[in-house]
Structure formats: C-alpha cells, structure tokens
C-alpha cells in the first residue's frame, strides 16, 4: 500500500465512528506496538495491527481497501494484551463492516454472505453429509432452519429488513 497520505484522504467522521464502536478506546492508543508483537497473523502476513490503528486514528479512508484488514483471525491476543485497553478487534470489525457496505469485501466472503442469507447457515448441508448423518443414525437434516422452513423464512426476513440482502 502507498503511505502517501493526503489531507483529502482523512476523515474525522471515520475516527469518530470507529472510536464510538470501540467504547471510546481507539484514541487511547499510544502506538506502543504490543498488538503487532502479539499478532499471530502479523508473524506470517503483512498485517500490522499497530499500523491499522495508527491509520484509523488519522481517519484514513484507504484502510477500507487494504487487504490486510482481512488477514486478522480475530484471535484477540492483541486485544487482551493491550496496555491501554484499546478494543483492537472491534476497530478491525467495524472497518470491515464499512468496507463490506461499500462492496469492497473479498469475493469469497461475498459468497459466504450469500449462503448465509439464502440458507440461514454460513455452511449449509451437502448431499454427502445428509447421507453421512443418516448413516450415523441422525436425522438427515439437523433440527435447525434446515428442517424448519418457517424458521428459515424468519431469518430471511431479518436479513432483508437490515438491508443485508441488498448489500450482497
């Protein structure tokens, strides 16, 4: 990513929104880097939580396009170790929400979102597992939305009402 940051790339509203969702902890960050040194992902990827937080405090909109945003496994090691009690993972999740809303999520993620909106399960059943369930003495369909169409209809109504269906 380019680190050339121009004033027009910075938004105060972005900082405020992220700070609010993080229980007003984002602005407590003192840039110590303990998050990055605790990061399971950062040891093997280009994710630097410290840099994400720094750019977030600047209100840098380019964050929404950074692939690194999707490299966090949400292990919460940085969250628990942060000496300033910054809700690090909450900031990342909120940024992802903003990216998703603007259609900038990764393609495979859009597919997962569709599965969820359509079946009420992010990982729906397959023919192979239906057969396996039967073989193991379980009902072919689990007693979830899979077996209750009226329950699935409820979930579908929820995702429609929140606008989720439109986003995908």
């Amino acid at each position, binding site marked *: 990513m380019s680190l050339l940051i121009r004033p027009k790339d910075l938004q105060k509203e972005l900082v405020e929104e992220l700070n609010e*969702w993080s229980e007003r902890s984002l602005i407590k960050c003192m840039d110590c880097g303990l998050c990055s040194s605790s990061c*399971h*992902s950062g040891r*093997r*990827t280009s994710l630097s939580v410290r840099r994400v937080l720094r750019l977030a405090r600047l209100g840098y909109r380019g964050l929404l396009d950074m692939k690194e945003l*999707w*490299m*966090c*496994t*949400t*292990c*919460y*090691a940085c*969250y*628990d170790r942060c000496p300033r009690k910054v809700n690090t*993972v909450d900031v990342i*999740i*909120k940024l*992802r*929400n903003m990216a*998703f*809303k603007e259609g900038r999520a*990764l393609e*495979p*993620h859009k*597919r*997962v*979102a569709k599965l*969820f909106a359509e079946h*009420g*399960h*992010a*990982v*729906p*059943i*397959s023919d192979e*597992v239906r057969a*396996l*369930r039967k073989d*193991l003495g*379980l009902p072919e369909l*689990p*007693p*979830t*939305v*899979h*077996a*209750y169409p009226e*329950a*699935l209809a*409820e*979930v579908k*109504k*929820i*995702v429609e*009402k*929140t*606008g*989720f269906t439109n*986003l995908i």
Partner: protein
Amino acid sequence: MGMTYAFFLGCIMPNRYPGIEVATRRVSQAMGIELIDMPGASCCPAPGVIRSFDLMTWMIVAARNLLIAEQLKAPLAVVCNGCYASLKEAAELLKERPEYLSKVNEVLVDVTGKKYRGTTEVVHLCYEIYEKLGVEKIKGLVKRPFSAAVAVHYGCHILRPARKGRIDDPEEPKFLDQLVEALGAKSVYYKDKLMCCGAGGGVRSGLIDVALDYTQEKVLNAKRAGAECIVNICPFCHLQFDRGQGEIESKRGVKLDLPVLHWMQMAALSFGLATPREVGLHAQVISTDPLLKKLGFS
C-alpha cells in the same frame, strides 16, 4: 443434579462433522446431562464472517437464537468456539446495552412476534463438564483409557477476549489439558500451543493460504513434540486441522497426517459409548485408523 441445556448445533458440526454431534449427545447422556434441541435455530451467525460484514444483522440473528433458548428456559450450550464467541458476545451486548436490545427487538417482534428479554446464558459444554462435574467424574466413566500423547488445541475464542471475561487463564490455560488427561492421555507441551488454527476471522474463506500457513506450522510443532493426535473443542478448528492437512498435502505436497479429534469424540470412545465409525471418524480426511488400532479402539 439437573443439568439441562438448550443444545445449539451451529453449522460445521451438523453440516460437516455430524460425528461430533453423535458423540456430544452420547457423552452428555452418560454424564446425566439433558440436551434439549433448539428447533429452527440458525447459524450463530459466524463471528469471523457475518459479524465482519454487518454488525446489526449479526446481532439480530444471534438474538433470535438466544430467544429460542430463552423460551426453552435453559442455558444455551455449544461445543464450538465460534458459536461461543458469537452468542456470548451478542448476549453480553444485549444485556449491557439496552439501546441495542430495543433496536434488536423492534425487528424480532416484527418477524417472530416474540421479544428477547436478554436473559439467556451461553456456555461451552466441554467447560461445563469440567467445571460442574469435574475430572474425577470423567475418570470414573473411562472404560478404555485413551493412552496416547495428545496435543491439545484450545482455540482462541474460548479463552479470549479475557478482558470481557472468558474461560480460564488465556496465557496459561489448563482445563483442556486436564480434560484429555482425565481420559488417560498425556498432554504434550509444544511450541506455540496457544496459536490460532488459522481459520478464524474469515481468513479460511477469504485467504486460504494464510490459514494453511498457520495450520501447517501448528501441526508440525505438535508432531515434533511427539503428539499422536490433536484434540480440540471446536468443529471449525477441527475442520481446519482435518481438511486443512488434506489441502496442505494436495497444494503443497507436504504430508502431515496428524489425526484430529474433538474432545467429545475422544470421550465417547474412552467411555465405551461408541465405535470410531459411530462418531464419524471414518469420514474424516486424515485417517485415525492406525492410532485407534494401536490404542485398541478398532
């Protein structure tokens, strides 16, 4: 005793590894735990993906699941760290933030005709067994000790965010080590024992190679410490280790072959409640046969 729970299945267990569901039902029955089904429950929804996409959708669908348990008047029990993370966080938010609860209920009342009161307690069944019944009770039920060297994998979301009150000590947890040792195994210490499996946060679906880097490293660490299998308490970690090793072999030509068991499958075998086939081990990617033969289970 009266241990009764609303049994939340989630997605991966019933739809990918149903053997874990069989094991959980049998182990619970043997331990005097009553599991009530939650008709019409959905995806928790997955904290790594759905929560990353739209917080409001995530919260309302989670609340709908919590509402089903509330109406059954039982704490909601999971055997998946992902479901635990999602439902626990949603339950806490809805309990502590009345503004979210009323926002969520606007939609819930409209869609389901019912209101969530915010009372559902979320627990992980493996930890409930450890805490409420204890290792001595487990030891007493063992018919055939699982006498192998085991690498335990806690998974992230049972331990963290510890700042919001999760289970055990996140830097030095012990309950899963004790749970496998109660079944006759030896828990081996290995490098980066508390490392993530790599699947969480949408990384498995979004960036599979990153996820596999984690898995490859962690499985190798476990093998180097002499582990004969890896034992988890999360079907998503379970899937990542089992399918992930298959993907590592086909994509990278690296053969690791470390068998993967959910603690419930391990307990069902040790308690003599099921054959390996009955808890679905024959359908897993990495064969458990050589190990289970050696231990006398098949």
